[in-house]
């Protein structure tokens, strides 16, 4: 897949939870990302597979669920907003469902 599917979740309004009425989704072409952002995204997938994410004191902050397709299959990770490149966090659109 040449695209990343991005979902904004959590926050004070509990975006994307089971009964929440707010959803936020978007897609972005990997090729449209700068080399630095591509590297950052790759780093997020790598660090998650190694279970490297540290616990944070952030509360009510958004998290991002990022999905990509690789020859090995579909991979999905979750990352805190502070670690996600702005190109990804800005590709989503908040909407009422």
């Amino acid at each position, binding site marked *: 897949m040449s695209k990343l599917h991005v979902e904004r*979740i*959590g*926050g*004070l*309004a*509990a975006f994307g*939870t*089971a*009964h*929440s*009425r*707010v959803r936020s989704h978007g897609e972005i072409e990997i090729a449209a990302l*700068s*080399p*630095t*952002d591509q590297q*950052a995204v790759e*780093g997020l997938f790598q660090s998650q597979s190694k279970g490297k994410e*540290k*616990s*944070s*004191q*952030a*509360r*009510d*902050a*958004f998290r991002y669920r990022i999905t990509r397709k690789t020859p090995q299959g579909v991979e999905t990770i979750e990352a805190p907003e*502070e*670690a996600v*490149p*702005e*190109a990804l966090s800005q590709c989503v659109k*908040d*909407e*009422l469902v």
Partner: protein
Amino acid sequence: MNNRFPMLSGGAPACACQCFIIPTKVLKRFSRDKKLSAKVRKAFALAARFEEHWRKVRAIKAKLAMTAQAMLPSALAAAPPGPPAVPVFDCRNGTALPGASVPKPGSSSDATAKRAFVETTDVAEFYKKLFGRNSIDNAGMAMISSIHYSVKYNNAFWNGTQMTYGDGDGNIFVDFTKGNDVIGHELTHGVTQHSLALSYENEAGGLNESISDVFGSMFRQWQANEDVDKADWLIGKEIMGKGAIARGYTCLRDMSNPAAKHCLAPQPTKFSQYKDGMDPHESSGIPNLAFYKAATAIGGKSWEKAGKIWYQALTGFGPSPNMKMRAFADRTRSLAGSLFPSQPAVKTAVDDAWTAVGL
């Protein structure tokens, strides 16, 4: 990503003088970013090292303050400390924290800056006057707010050091500083961090969120001088945008009826519905409803009895990061008896409230 760190005129990142707010891992990432000049990367690397040392200093300072409070002669310990500093910063729609300092925010022509200052100052007074607490850490910590975060940003959050408020997109949400309960909620995350130190997952996460809703709602009721029957028990009523209101959503959450359809994020009401892995903003509905039931059964003002019990359960026993809801419930049951020994109806009200939600 680079616009999260605007450059100063000399080419050094702005964070070099404000790095105490930016996560170390972000600083480190930029220190390795080959797109940045060697000078700028070096500045980020130095900022990351400084941040690590500064975090240690802050932790020692907080520990020292708590030790001093315990050791000082009572006359000295009782000396009234001054109010905490309440600085406000303007992100100017960027994401670099804390942003530009707002001079004299209490008289600012920017209504958001003024509101953030006034309401935060009031939260400090709420905790001081009702519970004898000196700011977030009970040691006079500055209560920092950043406003106008990002563009049409539909959130407010506590980052471990400060509050941050978005302007809302005008449709789902409006300016998050318009909710005094939102401001009380975010600041209470800081209070929890410096007391019970609850984690943010599973049962402890739900308790963490509930405690912020409980004290956020209590602050809103205190400002309006409302008793438990007059209060609406809604969370986030004042930040709902026109699009959300048109769809019938009047709040984020309703403590008196967490599963209600007028909530933007309905919640479970019984502990039997709880599952590990739930978002803390979902599972908080269970203890939220217990507080509502306890406070309304006791009657009067929520901060007079139920609030005192919940505050003591939060701050009186040291950290318990993985606390279960049942343990918190039992602690409040015990405190209801010890804090109000001549009023057995208080203990009965607390006991019945938790029993009603299955705890």
